[in-house]
């Protein structure tokens, strides 16, 4: 009797799991299996996301909307409006700062589709507990564990944590971060050789 019950329950459990997966939209937390990508591009996803108006403005101002609508794929580490404000870079939506906006965005974009599950899996495999990805600005971002969260640090020393929920777009992934990944307070003299 007990065996029959088990055999009956197992497929039921599988069905329930499958149903849970199907009910997901395009966002995911830290699940082992990422959700199916939405039909929206990365550009459209940024436009529609709540709390990322500054980022959307910087993308448009820098003339990179077409890039984020294209084939890609890219993973955009997306600073929130608060992050732009705290970093003093809210002005990058201004038309006099187009090149600066483009440079900032490139430092926040890595190639391919990077989900939290992918990063977590890489961190789990790595003996040092840190893994690196290369940005479009040709700098390296270092990911590591920060308690429950994932921290990302740039070569310049700026660091942020992955927050909120990722969004898988048709041509990449939006990974919200809580701070800018470029250093603001580093004095220019420090870079003089």
């Amino acid at each position: 009797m007990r065996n029959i019950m088990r055999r009956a329950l197992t497929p039921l459990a599988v069905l329930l799991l499958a149903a849970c997966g199907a009910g997901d939209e395009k966002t995911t937390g830290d699940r082992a299996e990422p959700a199916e990508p939405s039909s929206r591009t990365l550009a459209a996803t940024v436009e529609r996301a709540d709390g990322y108006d500054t980022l959307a403005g910087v993308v448009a101002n820098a003339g990179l909307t077409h890039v984020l609508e294209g084939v890609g794929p890219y993973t955009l580490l997306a600073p929130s409006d608060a992050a732009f404000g705290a970093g003093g870079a809210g002005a990058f939506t201004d038309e006099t700062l187009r090149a600066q906006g483009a440079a900032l965005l490139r430092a926040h974009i890595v190639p391919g589709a990077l989900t939290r599950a992918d990063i977590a899996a890489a961190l789990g495999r790595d003996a040092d507990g840190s893994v690196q990805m290369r940005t479009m600005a040709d700098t390296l971002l270092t990911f590591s564990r920060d308690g429950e969260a994932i921290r990302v640090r740039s070569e310049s020393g700026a660091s942020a944590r992955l927050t909120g929920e990722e969004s898988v777009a048709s041509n990449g992934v939006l990974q919200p971060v809580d701070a800018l990944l470029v250093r603001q307070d580093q004095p220019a003299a420090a870079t003089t050789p």
Partner: protein
Amino acid sequence: MKTIIPAAAALVLALGPAQISLAQDHGRGYGGDHARSDDGGKGGGRDSGRQAERRQDSGPDRSGQDSRGNRGRGGDDRRATAAVERIQSRAPGQRSDDGGRDRKDDRGREAGRRDQAAREVERVVARREAGPLTVFRVEPERGLVRGCPPGLAKRNNGCLPPGQARQIARARYDYLWNARRDDGVYRYDDGYLYRMDQRGSVLGWLPVLGGALAPGAVWPQQYAYQPAPDYYTDYFRLNQPYDYRYANGALYGVDPRTQAITQVVALLTGQPITVGQPMPAGYDVYNVPYPYRSQYADTPDGLYRYSDGYIYRVDPTTQLVQAAIQLLA
């Protein structure tokens, strides 16, 4: 889904030795002929058909492609293309098209392209001795143009006498341009980056994305670029009548008559990744695009990493690049 991944992994494992031997074979005797046969056999009808129609001047990985009789599945091709064919057979409905490009257009190629299963055509290009697969070199100085930029008179040794660095003022956002510590000092002004020495003299200059390199602007005459390889025409779907150029991390479309930049197409890392060489730093995390994840999942024998339109297969122990896979729609 959970059963597919192990199956895919098993398939990849089975193919792994075959692919490696393919790389080795080609490494020994690789030349233009092999490239041609590669395309015909692996890519199947669609790929060689397209090449026959469009390709005159080929990139480094397709030397002198011309019309090939061997279209379709190329079942009689005795090399390890059998390995590739097995992958192709898992994409139902895609291989039925044997013809050239026109026929595919009639069938609504755009719709077919969007179909994820239809994108699983690959051409494993594993050339050891033909140099880097990606055309781009990482310019150590980003294509810096030596000397004085237009508008700054040449004085002494570098355009500006010492102390006049104020002319290219230290701007509030200098940190953006000096993120790479080993790079020297750069200042930004009005569309251009200027490389400075300690005394404030200008050593060189380059136009930057969003500044002098923006839609509407004319391509600066002295600024060198690399023409986009044919593969990128396919991958990025560059179907406008523009010159497509790569420079310093971005792919631009340029009107050939006016030399005006019409669009920024893509961002690229520009990393030169070469089969047989170590994978560069910065590809630690699995980042394969979604449509290809079921096909290219990490295994103990091979890791897959995406960069600039290619999926690279990397040996987990040696970190050497084993294969570069083009992703053709």
